């Protein structure tokens, strides 16, 4: 493919390794999940690789398993916005995206925090909006578990609309800072808000001038029909689940086809699946490393814990290298809290797992390694670059949020070996040509309030 051909451009993000078993902490190369040096390392690596943005998830309550704090995965993480602010001072172009829950925050404060990050990063802020109706998490907050499950997208939509209204309330040219006339910011340049919705009853004036991006970039995850519709209506990018090429194309087409009814074009919403990757000098070496990583990700105790989630009971007496238990699972017993449950219908899943293990003669650990495997990129740098480009050029995605399995060096090899190949074929920028994240993602600037509403 010639460099002169205009190719669809890939967007890449670096996900700081999270607190599930994707992150391998037992490896000798694994470093702190909390020291700022780890965040600096990953962010600087991503910026060196000309990535669109860095991504940090949020924790609001430590997970529990069988009534106690889950201790088998990485535990503990920092406050999201605080780390992004600190990284803003240590990077120059990299977008800074963070998950912030809308259930346990009020729009006025959220709007102020994200406007602050956008100002102090020169227009690089992004918000991955989640809305959790989770009473378990609510125990750490004033209102407890107040939100009904059915109301989560109602609240999410209202939060987006209200925060955008606040961000739009200062005129673009405000503050005027007219020393002669003695006017710092004119009353007429700060439009008051007066919001009365199902979730909010607020009035007043917002206190932060319009930030460089106008609206920080909005990311959203959610695979349900309601989630897809919300993304099409409101989001700038969808953080989706990585699957096969066909699954990717189907999701991509479905979501993008929903944009027109909101007056939006295909380019206004980027589809960015989260994907893991394993590299090797040869295909065989990559496969071998992938096998080794899977063994690290599903240690003996983790295998039992996954099984317990489905069975709903203590299975610690079982040998992870032995056969599956003969006992029946408990119906409707949830023993893991603070994360999405692995199985929606545990009885059916248990039967399916048992049948698979019997048929293929798998131990508990071998079975869990297989059934919890996700689609990932495995191969030589050339193979991985080809595959990523194929997904993007054939509209299975607009790029990827890459999730390294090691903190903080897990992206180094990708940046050193895969990124140059993507650049060589003209699918990925060789340098930043914009200073804002909206610019990197090729998103239009949001209209101001006086120009009328548009989704972003």
């Amino acid at each position, binding site marked *: 493919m010639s460099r002169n051909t205009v190719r669809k451009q890939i967007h890449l993000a670096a996900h700081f390794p999270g607190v599930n078993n994707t992150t391998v902490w*037992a490896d000798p190369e694994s470093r702190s999940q909390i020291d700022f040096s780890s965040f600096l390392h990953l962010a600087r690596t991503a910026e060196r690789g000309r990535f669109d943005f860095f991504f940090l998830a949020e924790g609001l309550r430590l997970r529990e398993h069988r009534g106690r704090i889950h201790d088998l*995965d990485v535990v503990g*993480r920092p406050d999201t916005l605080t780390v992004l602010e600190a990284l803003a001072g240590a990077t120059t172009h990299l977008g800074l995206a963070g998950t912030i829950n809308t259930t346990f925050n009020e729009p006025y404060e959220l709007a102020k925090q994200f406007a602050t990050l956008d100002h102090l990063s020169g227009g690089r802020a992004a918000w991955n909006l989640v809305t959790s109706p989770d009473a378990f998490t609510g125990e750490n907050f004033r209102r407890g578990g107040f939100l009904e499950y059915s109301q989560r997208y109602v609240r999410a939509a209202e939060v987006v609309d209200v925060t955008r209204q606040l961000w739009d309330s200062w005129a673009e040219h405000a503050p005027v*800072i007219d020393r002669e006339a003695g006017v710092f910011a004119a009353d007429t340049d700060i439009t008051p808000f007066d919001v009365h919705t199902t979730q909010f009853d607020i009035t007043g004036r917002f206190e932060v001038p319009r930030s460089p991006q106008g609206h920080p970039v909005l990311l959203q995850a959610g695979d349900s029909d309601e989630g897809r519709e919300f993304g099409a209506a409101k989001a700038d990018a969808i953080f989706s689940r990585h699957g096969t090429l066909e699954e990717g194309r189907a999701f991509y087409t479905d979501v993008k086809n929903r944009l027109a009814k909101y007056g939006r074009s295909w380019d206004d919403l980027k589809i960015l699946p989260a994907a893991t990757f394993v590299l090797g000098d040869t295909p065989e070496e990559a496969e071998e490393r992938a096998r080794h990583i899977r063994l690290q990700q599903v240690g003996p105790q983790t295998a039992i814990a996954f099984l317990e989630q489905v069975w709903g009971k203590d299975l610690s007496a079982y040998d992870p290298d032995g056969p599956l238990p003969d006992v029946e699972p408990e119906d409707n017993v949830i023993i893991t809290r603070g994360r999405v449950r692995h199985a929606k219908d545990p009885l059916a899943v248990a039967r399916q797992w048992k049948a698979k293990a019997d048929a293929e003669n798998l131990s508990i650990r071998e079975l869990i390694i297989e059934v919890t495997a996700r689609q990932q990129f495995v191969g030589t740098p050339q193979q991985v670059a080809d595959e990523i480009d194929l997904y993007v050029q054939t509209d299975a995605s607009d790029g990827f949020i890459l999730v390294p399995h090691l903190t903080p060096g897990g992206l180094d090899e990708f940046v050193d070996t895969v990124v140059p190949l993507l650049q060589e074929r003209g699918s990925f920028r060789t340098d930043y040509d914009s200073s804002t994240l909206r610019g990197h993602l090729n998103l239009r600037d949001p209209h101001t309030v006086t120009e009328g509403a548009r989704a972003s």
Partner: protein
Amino acid sequence: MSDSSELLLAVEFAGTGVHPASWRRDDSRAEELFTPRYWADLVGAADRAGADFAFFPDTFGVVSGENTVRGRLEAIGLAARLTTATSRIGLIPTATVTHTEPFHVAKAIQTIDHTTLGRAGWEVAVTPGVVELFGRKDEQDTASLWAEAHEAAEVAARLWDSWEDDAEIRDVATGRFIDRDKVHYIDFVGEYFSVKGSSIVPRSPQGQPLVAVTVTGEETLEFAVQRADLVRIRATDLAAAADLATRIRTRAEDRRIFVLLDVDVLLGDDAAADLARLEQWAGEPYRSDTLVHSGTPASLLEFLSGVSGVDGVTVRPLALAATVERLVEDVLPVLRPAVAPATGTLRDRLGLPRPVNRFVAAH
């Protein structure tokens, strides 16, 4: 404490300065007020010159007058943003507790302590009025606002201890990342809120980041006595400041606290003329509930040499950029002729021990 080189020196970084007309000066840098460069320049300069603490005031709501600075960045975010622009100074944002979540505030301050390797503090404040911005609460009187502040500070203190220092074990043999017996629920149940815990953030370098408060009345004085490490006071003469400091120390008994006197400062070669011009713009004389010093750097040094009975002063520049420039060039080099390279945490430099974890002590 007669030697002014022993005085702690803090600077309050607010807008273009505490004088409402300060933005009208040609050198106010008002156009840069919402850019990172403005803050990194000023706080970075104070840091390099050896100032001990940077305070970042904050509240909610926008002032009504068109002729004063309007608009403000969130102080916790601002302090965090200055992590890599500074290396020594204590970063102490104000976070009001009236409309915020104690859990969020606690973990954010704790995170600044991690990013700065132990230079974080929290100035606790309340926000009367402006309930309509949030629509969640009724108006509260001062007693109620500060009763809630006590609860928020208690929640933060417990959350900051909720992980024991050696909770992370990474024990490959048993597959355990943490020893969960060393991570604790805080089970706080109060009149204003309940928080289960534990913190999502492991214990930070200082263990307990420093807690600051400004004393403006009986409620804040009681808060200072019970909970603060840094106590900001206001007084219109040095004798009154020393008296108040003594009262606070007496009530705090054997708890080590540092009392810092707020001084509103305008530095310039002709500060009297500068002040007159600010007052002319404002249309009224400058009044303050604390000492005001306008003069040259030399006169400020002379003033500081007469300060006693308190542990330090907080300079509140009337005109921020210009006064910080003179502080850094002409005042701090005299007070801090040799700025030691940054080592240790803020607590280390104050001679405050890293607190024993209450959950370990309770074993």
